[in-house]
Each structure stands twice: as C-alpha cells, then as structure tokens.
C-alpha cells in the first residue's frame, strides 16, 4: 500500500490523505472508497481496509480517500462543507483515472453512498456504484446524528427539544457540536439535502448491499430506491447479506460475507481484459 497527501486542487486549501492499494495482476479498473460520517468512519476503517485489499488482489486499484477535515487529511472537521466533500469525490476519481484504464467505481458506505450517488450525475462521475448500506436520505442520517446530542443532554436532565434547537442553530448559521464533532451549517445542511435520487442522463451498474443480522429481504424504502435507479436506466443488483452493523458496533467488527459479495459483484460486472501479447 502507498500513503500520500493529494493537494485539494485549484482554488482550495489543504491536502487530502490517500491510501492506495494497487491492483495485482491484470488491472480491471479503479475503485474510490467514500467513508461514512463522523465516528462511523473510524469504526468502519478496518472493514474498508480489508475490502480494499481483497479488491486489489482481484485486479482493482483502490483509493481510500479521507475527505476534507476527516481522518488524516488537513484542516478541521469544523471547516468542512458538503460542497468540499463533493469536490473531494471529483479529486479522487480524477486521480484514479490517471492511474488506471478501465472503469472507475465509487464505493460509498452510508453517507459516503450519498456522495457517490450525487457524483454519478456528473459527466466526470463514477462509471459504476457500489453502495454499502445506502441511507434512505441525508436528512435521516443528520437526524440520527443530532439525536446523539439529545441522548447526551438527557443524561444531564435536558433532552426535550434538543434536536429542534440544534436544527434552528444550524439554520441561523451556527455550528453545532455533537460527540466531539463540530458540524458547520455548510456540512449539516448539505448532508440534510442529500438524497439517494437516481441521476438522469447517465447509467451504469449499481450494486446495493445492506448488512443485517438476519439476511432477509430489502426494506420497502430500499426497494423503492432500487426501483428508481432501475427506472433511470441503471443495472441494479440489490442484496442483504448477513453480518454486524460494523459502522456502529461498540467493538470493531467485520462482515466477511459483505467482503466476499462485494468482490464477486465487481468481478462479475467487469471481467478482466486479456493481456496484450
């Protein structure tokens, strides 16, 4: 693996930390990992690393990119905006396209999936999408995140109306602090507005994978999301695999079934080209 800092690019400040696992053997293409929000990123890092290694072994050059103010990237989380993160997705895709020929996937976990889906609308967007646990909407994720502050406040005897109060603060242009993360309005409102809507005008492959203790059927909400992407022309495979919700478990946990399924899905979608003689 190689680790380095990419300059954020023209008109932007700072660097983004990137970790690259190079493809072994004939190269199928590239994969850009887009991590989830706040502490979910930390908890999921091990799974991301394991998946990246598995994909690299199977012919993919994988870039794990830390978004602005996240992970090892420069700057503060408090200074990051959703627009910054969207620009970081473009940065990562462009870097991968310089490294490999062949299709480039955006692989997003939770909030990272929202970024991946939004990027799919752009001409320089990803060719295909691998989404792990796509959220119903960014609004729901933000709500879950703000509720953590409500839970903490409840232990202090507060709790009522906390989430509404935080939303008001954000609407008035003030950052809010939850569980050690200072979230700017530019980030929160961007997340709030993000949806899993299918883009018009472009289509590729979409692998929609969810993880549950009992691998069963997709939820009705997920089914509707999948149907919308199919209606927009995307080839969709959707599945629930068995495993722990590793992005939120107390201890670091892994979901081997998800690793295997994801590697197989990408291999099936993009067979290796025969090497030139």
């Amino acid at each position, binding site marked *: 693996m190689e680790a380095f800092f990419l300059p954020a690019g023209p008109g932007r400040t700072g660097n983004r930390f990137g970790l690259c696992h190079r493809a072994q053997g004939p190269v199928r293409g590239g994969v850009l990992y887009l991590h989830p929000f706040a502490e979910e990123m*930390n908890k999921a890092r091990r799974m991301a690393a394991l998946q990246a290694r598995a994909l690299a072994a199977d012919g993919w050059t994988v870039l794990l990119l830390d978004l602005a103010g996240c992970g090892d990237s420069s*700057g503060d989380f408090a200074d990051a905006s959703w627009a910054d993160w969207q620009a970081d997705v473009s940065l990562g895709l462009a870097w991968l396209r310089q490294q490999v020929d062949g299709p480039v996937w955006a692989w997003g976990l939770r909030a990272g999936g929202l970024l991946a889906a939004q990027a799919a609308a752009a001409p320089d967007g990803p060719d295909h999408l691998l989404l792990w646990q796509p959220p119903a909407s960014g609004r729901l994720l933000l709500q879950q995140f703000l509720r953590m502050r409500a839970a903490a406040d409840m232990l202090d005897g507060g709790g009522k109306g906390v989430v509404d109060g935080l939303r008001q603060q954000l609407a008035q242009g003030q950052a809010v602090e939850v569980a050690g993360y200072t979230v700017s309005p530019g980030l929160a409102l961007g997340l709030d507005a993000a949806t899993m809507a299918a883009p018009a005008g472009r289509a590729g492959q979409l692998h929609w994978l969810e993880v549950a203790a009992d691998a069963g059927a997709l939820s009705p909400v997920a089914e509707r999301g999948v149907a919308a992407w199919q209606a927009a022309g995307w080839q969709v495979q959707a599945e629930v695999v068995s495993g722990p919700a590793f992005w939120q478990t107390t201890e*670091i946990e892994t979901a081997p079934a998800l690793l295997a399924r994801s590697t197989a899905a990408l291999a099936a979608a993009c067979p290796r080209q025969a090497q030139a003689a």
Partner: protein
Amino acid sequence: MSSVHPHAGTPVRPAQVLADSHHPRPAAGDSPVPNTASAAMAGDAPTGSTAPVDDVLMIPCQGEPMLGLLSRAPQPAGTAVLVIVGGPQYRVGAHRQYVLLARSLAALGWPTLRCDVRGMGDSGGVARDFNHLHDDITAAIDGLCQALPEVRRVVLWGLCDGASAALMYWQASGDARVAGLCLANPWLRSDASEARTRVKHYYLQRLTQPDFWRKLLRGGIGLGAVTGLAQQVGAATQRGDAAPGAGLDFRQRMAQAWRRFPGPVLLMLSGRDFTAKEFLDGVQRDEAWRGALQRSGLTRLDRPQADHTFSAPADHQALTEAVARWLQASFGQDTPSPATATTTGAQP
C-alpha cells in the same frame, strides 16, 4: 493530480523495507511538493500551500506493515511522543483526537507519532487486544527513533487500554528510551471492579432516590432486578480474581510499572467516565496500588465535566494544554523551545 511528498511512503531506513512502498505515479506537469515543515497552525497547511501535514511511516512489525503518521516539529527535538492507540479505534482517534493532539504538540516542538498496531485500521496482520501490543510498541518506538535520529527520549501517550498497554510495555521491556508516560483514564477493569463501581456509583444513587423506595414498597421491583443487584454486590465483594499460579494479570503488571517507572507520569482523569471511576476505585482499594496517587513525579489533571474521550472542544483543549505544559516542564530543558508559547489546539 497527485502530489509526491519526499517522505510520503518513504519506508523506515533499516533492512526491512517494504517492497510496495513506492511513490504514486505523478501526473504529467506536477512537480514534487517541497517539505515546508513549518506548520504555523496545527492541522492546517498555510493557505495556498500544498505541504503535506504529516509524514507517512510504514513500520515493519514481525513481517507485517504498521501504518504510522508522524507530525514533525519545526526544529529537531530530543523528545518525541508516541500515541498508543487502543481499541476500538484506529490511528486518528475518536473525533480525530489523536490527529489534533499530534499536530498541536508537534507545532509546539514535540514530534508525535500515531500508529495503527497490527490488525487495526490500515495495518497488516491480525487484530489483537491491548495485552499483546509489546512487539507493536517496540517497532513503533524503533520506527520513530529511526525517522528522527535526534530523538533520545520517547513519551508514551495512551487513553484507556492504550494507557494500560503503555504501562505494561515498560513493565515488560524496561525500555530506557521511554522517558515519560501520559495516561488518560487508564483501563483497570475486572469483574469485581466493574461490579463495585456500578454498585458505588449507580445503585447507591438509586437507594437515595425516593421513587426507588416507592417502587420497592409497591412491589414494582422485580425479582430479576433484585437478584441482579445481589449478584453485583456479590461480585463486588470478591477478593482478588486472579487464579492461583496464573502469573501476573494485566492489572498487576500495570501496578508494577506504576511503582517502578522512574520518569514523570501525567495522569488525566475525566469526571464523567466509568473507566476513570473504576481506575480510582482500583488504585485506592488494591494493595498493589498502595500510595499510587501520591507517587513522586506524578502530575494529575482532573476534568470533572469531561467524558471518556474528552470530546467537548474545551476539554480537548485543556488536555492538549496540560500535556504541552507537562512536556515543557519535564523535558523542556533538553529541547529548544518553539518561537511561540501559545498552544494551538483545536481551531475555532
């Protein structure tokens, strides 16, 4: 599009260089980025600069690569800090606390390394618990000293089981390079201590609440709850839980290190933290820890409102400042003072 920092992916010097630590292919027209090293503000490259913030170290440990990020100081330093990352985290820490801490300390003159141990984050190998980090810590200290040849003294910084691992590393190795210990909310749990702490802090609170007694008298407290309490109290009053002949358990090893470590120790405790309460309970109760809190060379920081990871920005700031002050007081005479004496900490 890519940037090539002279140190990005540069392997640690000695023989076991990793074969795959080569530089990414730069895009046509890119020139290598100079290492400006003089970061005025922790965590932020100066506006318009593309200077990378930290150096990447790939540190071999028993044949597996450990990924470490080294925040360099503006000038060479004789003392450096190694953050021992406990589970369940990886090298950036909860709410990026290790990133912020490392960059703040480095800007003040204390180079700081934070590393994924084997099986954690991006490192190779199999996941392990805090009792088995000896080789990882050895390798990390080796890697730090090789990357910074002027470093003679290493301070181990650990939170929770990271703090426990730091103590146990010194107990097992007697590594003379370890010059100081920063220990935040050290992990000292046993079944007995967990039960005791729960009884002391939760159940006793319940006994003072009128609605508990009303419920009890009305018969609203089920047999399960009562038995549960009885079990907790029973566990709490057990004496010692190490099996005879089992060898030293982690708590005993920690106690030994605490007693024998000759250098300065900074102890940081959060007021709103079960682990910290357990630690205080354990050191006050167990014979092995007699006099621990009166230890010479001990500096103690108490933050009554802080949670386990000092997550509130004000608590993180206080922790960073306390560590910086303690480093200056303990090792400042050996290291050039930085030009500015102000702590940067988390930026508004």
